[in-house]
């Protein structure tokens, strides 16, 4: 699992019939203090109805097809949740930066 912010939607009309209902987003991965890392992921999003600017959790590999409605889809990265806030103990604040 990883944490990031949705940057942009990738619009595709020609696609495999199994991913007809799915939207694809470019997600910028973030440190826990919400500063950007130099990494991106292309993720599928199906049922949550998220948009650009939302903080999200992404799940990688075959578990991305365990999400509701994603069964048998040709996807290996998916958005699994929207993040409202992250709380970290004061002692571990310096862990938030990579």
């Amino acid at each position, binding site marked *: 699992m990883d944490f990031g912010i949705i940057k942009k939607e*990738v619009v595709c009309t020609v696609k495999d019939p199994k*991913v007809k209902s799915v939207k*694809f987003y470019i997600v910028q991965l973030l440190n826990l203090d919400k500063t950007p890392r130099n990494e*991106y992921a292309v993720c599928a999003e199906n049922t949550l109805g998220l948009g650009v600017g939302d903080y999200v959790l992404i799940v990688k590999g075959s578990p991305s097809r365990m999400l509701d409605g994603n069964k048998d889809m040709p996807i*290996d990265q998916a958005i699994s949740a929207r993040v409202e806030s992250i709380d970290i103990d004061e002692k571990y604040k310096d862990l938030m930066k990579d």
Partner: protein
Amino acid sequence: MFIGRVIGNIVSTAKRDELQTAKLFIVEVYDGRLEPTGKYEVSFDAIGIGLGDYVLVCGGSAARMPEITSKMPADSSIMARIDDFEKLKKEFKEV
């Protein structure tokens, strides 16, 4: 999953039975900033694409989910074509 550009196809005559109907393409891997990385991957075509198209490629066991590649020994499949890559790239820079 990653964004890539189809830059070539592969012709092979001696291949396993499972691969007889497979269409194999060379895809240049693009990074999250939509710039080419200089890396390449050989991918199965699941949707019918052409040279020069910008595409989405999925890897691992997801590569065997499209109908066409479901019985093939695939670990990388092209499963969507990006509509307007230039527009996407321009807008991405503005974000």
